[in-house]
C-alpha cells in the first residue's frame, strides 16, 4: 500500500467517500482521479458532472487536463452548457463535490487564489474556477489534500472556497465540508472543526497528524479504514495508470 504513489493512495481514500448512485460534481486532478476510481470499483452508477457542461462523463481514455478535454466529452451521455450544470448545483440537486486546493484550514476553508496578501501576493495562483461555487452549493463537500503540513493552516491566506460557517443556514446554503481526506487519514467536520475520524491502511494516528500545526481531536467513532480491496486496487491500476509513471 504505502508503496503506491501518493496520488493513488489519495484517490483510493477519497473514493471511499462516494456512494453508488450519487451525482458527483468533479474538478480536475485528485478529484477526478478519485471519482473515476470510485466509478470503476465500488460505485459503478456514480454520475460524473464537469463544470464544462458534461454529464455522465467517464474519462478513461486519457486523464483530462481541462474539464473541457476530449476524454471528458468522449462517451458522455449528455453535453449541455455550464449554466445548466451550475444551476443543478445551485438548486441542490448534486449530491457530492470533490475539491482540492493549495491551502486548507481547520474549518475546511480552501485557498487557491494567493499565497500572501491579495494585493501584494507572494504567489498569485489560478483563482476559484468553480471551486467557490461547489463549496457554497453542493450538498456534501469532500476535500482532498495530500499530506503536506505546509498546506494545513490555522487560517488560510485567502478564503477562495468557504468551509464551515454560522452564516450558511441563514443563507440557506448546505452545511459545507463533510470530510477532509489525505492519503493518511480522514478528518470529519461534524464537530465544527476537522477531527480525526479514521486512519488509512498502513498509517497510524501519529502519521495522520505528523507535522500538522492543528490541534486535532478524535471523533467518537474513530476507526482504522479497512484495507483497500482487490477491485479498488485493480481499478486504480487500470483507470489511473498514468499516475504510476
Amino acid at each position, binding site marked *: 500500500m504505502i508503496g503506491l504513489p501518493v496520488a493513488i493512495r489519495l484517490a483510493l481514500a477519497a473514493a471511499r467517500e462516494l456512494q453508488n448512485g450519487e451525482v458527483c460534481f468533479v474538478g480536475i486532478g485528485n478529484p477526478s482521479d478519485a471519482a473515476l476510481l470510485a466509478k470503476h470499483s465500488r460505485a459503478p452508477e456514480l454520475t460524473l458532472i464537469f463544470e464544462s457542461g458534461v454529464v455522465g462523463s467517464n474519462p478513461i481514455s486519457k486523464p483530462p487536463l481541462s*474539464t473541457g478535454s476530449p476524454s471528458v466529452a468522449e462517451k458522455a451521455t449528455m453535453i449541455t452548457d455550464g449554466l445548466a450544470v451550475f444551476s443543478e448545483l445551485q438548486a441542490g440537486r448534486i449530491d457530492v463535490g470533490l475539491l482540492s486546493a493549495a491551502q486548507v484550514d481547520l474549518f475546511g476553508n480552501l485557498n487557491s487564489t494567493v499565497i500572501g496578501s491579495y494585493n501584494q501576493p507572494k504567489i498569485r*495562483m489560478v483563482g476559484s*474556477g468553480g471551486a467557490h461555487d461547489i463549496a457554497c452549493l453542493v450538498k456534501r463537500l469532500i476535500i482532498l489534500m495530500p499530506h503536506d503540513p505546509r498546506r494545513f493552516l490555522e487560517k488560510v491566506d485567502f478564503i477562495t472556497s468557504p468551509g464551515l460557517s454560522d452564516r450558511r443556514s441563514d443563507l440557506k446554503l448546505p452545511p459545507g465540508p463533510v470530510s477532509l481526506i489525505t492519503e493518511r487519514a480522514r478528518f470529519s467536520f461534524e464537530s465544527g472543526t476537522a477531527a480525526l475520524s479514521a486512519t488509512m491502511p498502513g498509517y497510524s494516528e501519529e502519521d495522520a497528524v505528523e507535522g500538522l500545526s492543528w490541534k486535532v481531536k478524535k471523533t467518537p467513532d474513530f476507526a482504522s479504514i479497512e484495507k483497500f480491496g482487490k477491485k479498488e486496487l485493480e481499478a486504480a491500476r487500470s483507470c489511473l495508470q498514468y499516475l504510476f509513471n
Partner: protein
Amino acid sequence: MDKSAEISDLVEEHVNDGDTIFVGGFGHCVPFALCFEIIRQGKRDLTLCRSGTDILFDIMIGAGVASKVIFGYLGNPGIGLGHAFRRAVEAGTLTYEDWTNMSMILRFEAARQGIPFLPARILQLGDIANASIPGTIEVKTIDCPYTSEKLACIPALKPDVALVHAHQSDRSGNVQLIGVDGDMFTGALASEKILVTVERFVDTARITRLPEATRIPAYRTTAVAAVPWGAHPSYVEGVYGRDDDQYFAYDREARNVEGLEDYLRRWIYNCANHSAYLNAVGKKRLNVLEEQASRREIG
C-alpha cells in the same frame, strides 16, 4: 448577407484598442488563431473576460495586449499557474478581477437576457467578495421580495466583442458546433459583436440538417472566417485532438520572461499568418492530432 471575411480583416475592422473581449472556448474550440492575430496586429489595452481560461489568456497577458482580466480561473488547466499572469500581478502591472466560474457565467447570462443582474446564492461567504480586503470585487446583495432570503446580485457583463471558434458556418454566419460548450455561447450571445472562425464553410442547406447545432444565428454574427486548425493547440470535437504537449511546453517555457518571449516569437511573431503557424507546428504533428479526433461528425 455575406459575412465571410479574412481573419486579418476580422481583427482589423472589428477589434479596437480598449475593447472588452470575451474569449470563447472552454477547453474545446479555444480561438487561438484569432487571438494570435490580435497579438500580431499589436492591439492594446484590451480587457479579457471569461470563466475558466486557457493558456491563451496568459499568452495575451505576456504579449502585452491585455491591461485587465476578469475571470473565474486563470492558469494552465490541469498543469499549473499562469506564469505571465503571476508575474504581472506580482509586479502590479495588470488590473484583475477575481470572480468564480459560475458567477462569470451568470454575468454573461444576465447580459444575454438583457437584465442588469442575476440573483444567486454564491459570493456571500469567503473572501472573493469581501469589502474588508481591498481590491476584491464588490457584490451587492438583496433580500428576495418573496422569500426574504439574502441573495447576491451578480452584475451583467456585456463584452464589446466575442471571439469564437467553431466547426462550421454558412457564409451568412449561422455558426454550428458540437461538443463541449461551457460558457462559450452564453458569453458570445451576451456580446455586442461576435467574430467567428470556423473549420469550414458549408451551404445553408447543410446548416438546416441539424439546426439544433446552430449556436449563433446569422443576424448576430459580425463576421466569419474559414480558418482550419484555428483552435490548435486546443481541439475541435471530431476534427482534431488536443495537443496536450503544447500545454506542457508552454508551462516549461513561460516560467521566465525570456522563455515566454521565445515562445511568442516562435509561434506568433515569426509566423506571418496562420498558415505559417501551421507550418511551424508541422504536418506530421497535425496528422497525429487528426488521428486522435473522436469519430463524431456534425450534421
